[in-house]
Structure formats: C-alpha cells, structure tokens
C-alpha cells in the first residue's frame, strides 16, 4: 500500500475554510482590502478578526490603494522550495502606511530599487482541493 496526498503550500481561502474569505474574493476582483475594527476604527494589515487594542471581533472591509512603494527587497536565486521558481523577488511594499509582504512579478531582479513604485497584481495559484480558485496579493513594477 502506498498512496499520495497533496502538500498544499497555499492558504485555504473559501468561506468554508476561513473567516477572512472576503479578502480573497475581493482580491480575485482586483481589489486590495483589509479589516477596520468596528470597535475602535483601527485599520490592520494583514486583515484580522480580532483587535488587540479594543478586544472586538467585529470588523468591516475597507479598500487600500492598489499602488505602493518598495520598502525593502531581496532576490532569492537558489534554495527555493520545490515548486517555486528562481529568481524570486521578495519585497516589503508600503501601501497606505501599511507594510505588505509580497513578491514582485514581471520585474528585472537587477533593476528593483527601494522606493520604486509597484502596483497590485493578484496572482492566481492552484485551486484548492474543492476546486475553489485562489489568489495571492502579489505586486508588479508599476508602469511609468
């Protein structure tokens, strides 16, 4: 007896699987949203279902800008996990004052600079085991 199972590196994004599913639905529509606490009004990144400041678990979704600037980055050339291609540009992007961890797609790795403008470019990854589409909040170098 021997058999195989998926080792799935992506989040479970559907309403059957996570309280934050609206984030992913909006992302699939090209919008970057996050949570604003209904208790104290604090906006968080990444989205959260509990506010440490006021201990509320009620929130609403608000839009963030679809553009940001590179705060820090590195280019991984080797040693990536199986299934992820090199070179890969990992970056922290500032969006509306929040730091967003992401990858930069379509960039010349040698040309990326701190301070550079980048735009949201949602990345479709493998569907989940139930066939639900999945998206990650990737960015690309903004057109000049």
């Amino acid at each position: 007896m021997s058999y195989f199972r998926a080792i799935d590196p992506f989040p479970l994004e559907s309403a059957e699987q996570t309280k934050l599913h609206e984030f992913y639905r909006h992302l699939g529509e090209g919008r970057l949203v996050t949570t604003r606490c209904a208790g104290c009004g604090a906006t968080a990144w990444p989205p959260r279902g509990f506010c440490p400041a006021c201990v509320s678990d009620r929130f609403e979704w608000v839009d963030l800008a679809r553009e940001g600037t590179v705060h820090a980055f590195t280019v991984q050339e080797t040693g990536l996990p199986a299934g992820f291609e090199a070179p890969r540009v990992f970056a922290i992007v500032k969006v509306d004052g929040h730091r967003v961890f992401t990858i930069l797609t379509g960039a010349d790795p040698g040309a990326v600079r701190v301070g550079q403008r980048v735009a949201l470019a949602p990345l479709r990854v493998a569907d989940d085991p139930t066939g639900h589409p999945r998206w990650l909040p990737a960015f690309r170098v903004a057109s000049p």
Partner: protein
Amino acid sequence: MNEVALVGAGVSKFGVRKATYRDLIWEAGKACFDSTPGVRPGDVEGLVVGSVMPERTAFQSHIASLAAEALGIRPSALSARTEHMCASGTVGIRYAYAFIAAGLADLVMVLGVEKLNQPSGDEAILNMGTGVDREWEAAFGLTAPPCFALAAQRHMAAYGTSEEQLALVGVKNHTHATKNPNAHFTRGATLDQVLCSRMISTPLRLYMCSPITDGAAAVLLASGERARALTDRPVWIRGTGQALDGFQLTSLHEDYAHWPALRRAAGAAYRMAGVGPADVDLAEVHDCFAIAELIAYEELGFCKKGEAGPFVAAGRSDYGGDVVVNPRGGLIGCGHPLGATGVAQAAEVFVQLRGEAGARQVPDAALGLTHNNSGMGEHVVMLYGREA
C-alpha cells in the same frame, strides 16, 4: 514557591469548524479576555500554546508565535508551544505554572488549539497515527481506538464490566454536553443509541469514543498577588502530577486495565494539595474512550479497582453522586481537539469553581481535578481549588 491561580478562561465553539487555526485562536482568545476585563493583550507577559499537528493539517509550525501575533500579545518573559499528544494543553499549563511559581513571570496565557478536520477527513484519521510509535505500531495502521479497546477487553474479562456500563459513560457525557453550547455534540444520546452505534474496535462503539474535533481554549494564569488584584475569585492551582510508564503498548503494565502511571500522577497531585479523592467535587477526566473514564475512576481513587462499572451505573459520577465527572460533556460529548482539550478542562473547572457554570453548575464546587492521558501509560493530573 509562589502561589499561582487562574484568573480568566474562554473556549471557542467545538466541532467541525469552517475556520483556520488563527480563527480558532481569535475566538478562544477573545472569550478569555472577555472573562477578565482587567487584562488586555498588552498586559500578558507570556504565551504558551498547546498544539499537536498544525505541521500536518495546516503545513504550519511555530504556532505559538502565530498565536501571539494573532492576539496582539508581545511576550516579554515566556513564549513556547508544547506538545504531548492528547495532554499537550495541560503540559502547557504546567510550563506557565512553573514559570510563575518560580517567580519568573506574573501573568501568562495558555492557549490550546487544533484544527484536525483538514485537509480531508481520512487524512485526519491517518494523522492520528502520529501519536503512537511509527516504526513499531503506526506502521500497522494503529491509532488510539484499538489501544484502549485492549484495556476494555481486559476490564470486562477481569471485572465483569459490561458493554452497558461502558455505554453509560457515553450516555452521561453526551447528556452533559446538551447543557454546553460550545460542545461538538449537543443532542444527547440514549442507552439504545450508544449500544446500537457502529462498532469501532471491539468492544468500543462510536458513541463510546471521542470524535475528531476542531477547537481552541485559553486560560490566564497569574501569580498570587496579581491574581488577587485582578479578581476576588481566583481559582488556585493546588497540586499537579505527571508520570509515564512507557510509550509503546508492549512497555506498559501487562494487564492493560491497570494504569499505574495514573495512580502515581494522581498521588503526587493529591499529596501536593494535601487532599484526597473524596475531597474532589468535579473531575474533568480524559474520556477519549469510555473505558478510559472507567479506569480513571479507579486509579484516581473515586472507587476501588474493578468497581468502576457499578460506580457509573449507580450514578455516583453524575450530579447527586460522589463526584461529577465531565460536567461539560467530556471528550466524548464536547469533542477532542487535542491541544485544546486540557485547556478546555481547566476553563471548565474555572467557571465551575466560580459558580458561573449556569445550567451545568456543580453545586458548591470547591475542588476540581483535571486528568489527561496521551496513551494508557502517560498521565497528568491537576488540582484546582476555590481556596488557596
């Protein structure tokens, strides 16, 4: 050694949950903070998380740090995840307890969390095999039910314990769970239902077994001085004991109905607290299977060896009896989200000893016990008291 008390507690809804590990952490964490208005996440000096298999079910390790971030806790004294299979939560409580008792921290949260029903149902069962020895046991397809079935077979043969007496544990705990809105099962079960439920591993039937459950629970532990400042009803840790006979089935007592490690763990806890089994008002025992609750009665000293069957049949472990066992519904009724179980037991003792357990309140509960096993030869016992 400093005094240590519970000052807050909260649990998530248990069941097959449409939720991530983080969602469950938020739910239990909020419930715990809601129970302790004097404590905000920024006040907590340490966080210990009991969890068994996020590596398998969510491809995620490092779950203590994930939980700290989720709850907005910035540990300044202590951060750890503990794992001891089904005893992981209580082993986490003991970490926080020792830190506070030694004077190394004053206010620590212990959270237990497990999302077992993921990524798929049959993988969930396969994952449970990680709790026994891969090379010499799990390779044969062994998980927990056949282990405890060996104990049940032996208890029936040696003491005449009947299938009906085993079933009465299921009936009691399913019935208790009807008064616990956070339980996995809330519809109760009749003796017929238990006896007619499908056979899992002879002689254990479905309703004599705990289900595969998702859930989380959290408690706040404080030093004596801090506890008194935060609440006028702290719940004190009075004693604790842990003992192991062995890991593999073939290292345990030859008579699988004898669990000497539980007797030693309980003895250590009773001695430390200066109490005996007759002083216990309620006990949250580890009924992963009905036979475990019966043997726990005996090894904890609630009845003599071999008399657990008649003990449950006479109602002596229910309301109005000698000791109320598993008022929240136990693992059979509430479910068994591994890392969360021990913490949820402590949370139950917390509300019971404060008189806040509502419809399932044990009258005038002053001393509560919790017990976990993580195999028939591995046991941990805690004693909590209304008085220090």
